[in-house]
């Protein structure tokens, strides 16, 4: 039998405690070898809560010789330094999304991973959600025919309080809501439709992380031109979901955490809806673990490390997401309703 993979979780904050630690402890294929956080007490608290006794330290360098892989779940601006230390130490990495706070850092990580023959996966865990996976498969198979337009939105009144409060700082995030929330959709979009030919972008940043953002995407070189929008908010609750207009009708995907289906309202029968889902025999075989996107992400990562096959979300894909995010920020204009205040801010700055 293969030895369990020795994993360190770097960063003992909310995402580690709520998602990565349970995923690791639930896997027979891995062992939680270390918890790393600048605040050692947080590691001790997490260890106590889960009744485990991994090695606890404040710097990943102290455990590089004792681990096979690391899950990096720290504030975005620290991803690069930690990932580079791991890669140089021959340790595989699953880096929480986004891969890094800047495109340059992301490219450096991807290049170093290739150079050292180390697997780097990016923690776009939403790619492992059944409905997202299903929709992606259907799009790639051409099930809906030509796709003409799409719209995505996700808005909450705040929420998500990371232990480090890094989300108050633009540099720590590498942006704002576009990175914190939008990056998931950007990852799906790149996977489904490729890199857009043209973008427009507006947000409400006045120097800090933007709380609201809106973007448009144009794909001119597909067989059928495609246009789409993305709307994100950390101050306004928006019904979350994705909708697209296709040859077969209107397709919608509600909140990503909902049931594993997409809904099709056929073009020629708009008074009915079709639920598209996996065959029932596939759903019947699902276990709690195989329905948990963080557990599936971990399994995919470990399998990639063992077999040297690419993980579902590779470092190169993470780099493309960063490239598009930077392109959006480069195209930035102020959101219309903030234009006046923005001008006022500029005048006083």
């Amino acid at each position: 039998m293969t030895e369990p993979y020795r994993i360190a979780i770097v960063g003992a904050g909310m995402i580690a405690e709520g998602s990565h630690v349970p995923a690791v402890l639930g896997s027979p294929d891995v062992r939680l070898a270390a918890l790393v956080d600048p605040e050692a007490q947080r590691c001790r608290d997490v260890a106590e809560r889960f009744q485990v006794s991994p090695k606890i330290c404040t710097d990943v360098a102290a455990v590089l010789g004792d681990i096979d892989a690391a899950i990096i779940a720290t504030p975005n601006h620290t991803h690069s330094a930690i990932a580079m230390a791991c890669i140089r130490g021959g340790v595989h990495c699953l880096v929480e999304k986004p891969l890094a706070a800047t495109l340059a850092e992301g490219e450096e990580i991807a290049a170093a991973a290739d150079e050292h023959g180390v697997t780097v996966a990016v923690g776009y865990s939403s790619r492992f959600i059944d409905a997202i996976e299903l929709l992606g498969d259907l799009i790639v198979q051409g099930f809906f025919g030509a796709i003409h337009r799409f719209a995505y939105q996700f808005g909450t009144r705040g929420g998500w309080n990371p232990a480090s409060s890094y989300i108050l700082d633009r540099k720590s995030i590498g942006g704002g809501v576009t990175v914190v929330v939008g990056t998931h959709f950007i990852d799906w979009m790149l996977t489904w439709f490729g890199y857009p030919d043209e973008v427009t972008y507006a947000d409400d940043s006045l120097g800090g992380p933007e709380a609201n953002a809106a973007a448009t995407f144009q794909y001119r070189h597909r067989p059928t031109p495609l246009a789409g929008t993305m709307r994100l908010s950390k101050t306004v609750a928006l019904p979350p979901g994705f909708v697209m207009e296709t040859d077969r009708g209107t397709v919608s995907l509600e909140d990503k955490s909902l049931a594993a289906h997409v809904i099709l309202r056929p073009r020629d029968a708009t008074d009915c809806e079709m639920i598209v889902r996996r065959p029932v025999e596939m759903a019947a075989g699902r276990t709690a673990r195989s329905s948990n996107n963080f557990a599936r992400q971990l399994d995919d990562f470990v399998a990639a490390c063992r077999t040297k096959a690419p993980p579902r979300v590779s470092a190169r894909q993470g780099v493309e997401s960063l490239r598009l995010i930077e392109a959006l920020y480069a195209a930035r204009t102020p959101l219309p309703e903030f234009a006046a205040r923005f001008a006022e801010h500029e005048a006083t700055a």
Partner: protein
Amino acid sequence: MTRRVAIFGASGHVGGTLVERLLSRGAYDVRPIINTSGNAWRLARRGIRLWQANLARREQIREAVAGCEIVVNCSFPPAELMEPTIKNLTDECLAAGVKRFIHLSSIAVYGEFPSPAAEYESATERAKKPTYGYYKLRQDAIVEKAARSGLPSVVLCPPNITGLNSRYVFDIIDALRRGTLPLVGDGSAPCVLVDVVNLAAAIELAFERGPVDGRRMFVNDDDRTNWRDVIDALLPIVPDAPPIESIGEEQARRFVASQREGHSIAQAARRIAGLAELKRIVKQTPTLLRWARRCKTWSKYGPKPIQRALGGGTRGTLGTPPAPSLSRLVGHQLRGVRHRCDLARRELGYRPEVTFADSMATFRRWYEAYCGFGGDEWRLLSELYRRANSGG
């Protein structure tokens, strides 16, 4: 010398608006104080320093109010913490020698159905435990006591708050879209509101003026708005709203009374299931997670009796959605009192900066920009609103 103003609850609707107002003035050293980072995006986007302080921790309050001449309390702690936190805050403000403490009360202290005398602040408070109004009333008593002990305290008493980012206006829009907000009678009942800009203006006035003995002062838009006006003002941005119905006052009272009754088992189970800690435990316990998922599946696709028992059948297209209940806003139409701002006008020199009509027009423009309303993408986004509001 620039006066230092500490604003507790700066990440909230009123606190955030006040911080932005004071920053634009340039005449204050503004210290925005937040509890947690998650709700502070509106201010964080400015790239300014935000202070974190937990009102349950005295040492954190002490640090936050140090050197502050004025302290404004816009915090909104959970009910069980409302009394201890205001006690901590007023004690620390007293100890720090704060020159003016401004506290936000609420018209809820006069109860769900205030007496006609509540036109004026001197009316008897009727809020009953365990309502929000009751806890605000307890807070007011603590502030008044602090004022007697030497903390100069101005207490402003707003109604429901409108303006950009207003949760109350979003609640009305949601209720209109769901068809759960009928008018009581012909909708002529008074609807007392305050635009957040007006409230922030009143708070700023209170830096200089107003009685400091902890007495309440009503602050509102001070006009003759009724519920029909509010609905008419918002319907243009809810084009998919079903027709507005009308119900009798008696029916409305019966509905409000029914809301005070206990939960059914299904309602209680859903509330318990919504608790964050429970969610986390379930998520980390494979067996529980498996059962939770089964329940979710049964509630949507199981036999009808099971769907009904689990309160499901409302998502997707399967099952029959239950008849929509009424919004709690129906009860607000029964308050029947127009609170007068005479005291604030006289003592603070308060004059509303924004009229109801301006407030709603600004909100509509803002909503269009934020929600994509009316644009090309609305054709697609409206699908999400339709599904969300039908429970599907």
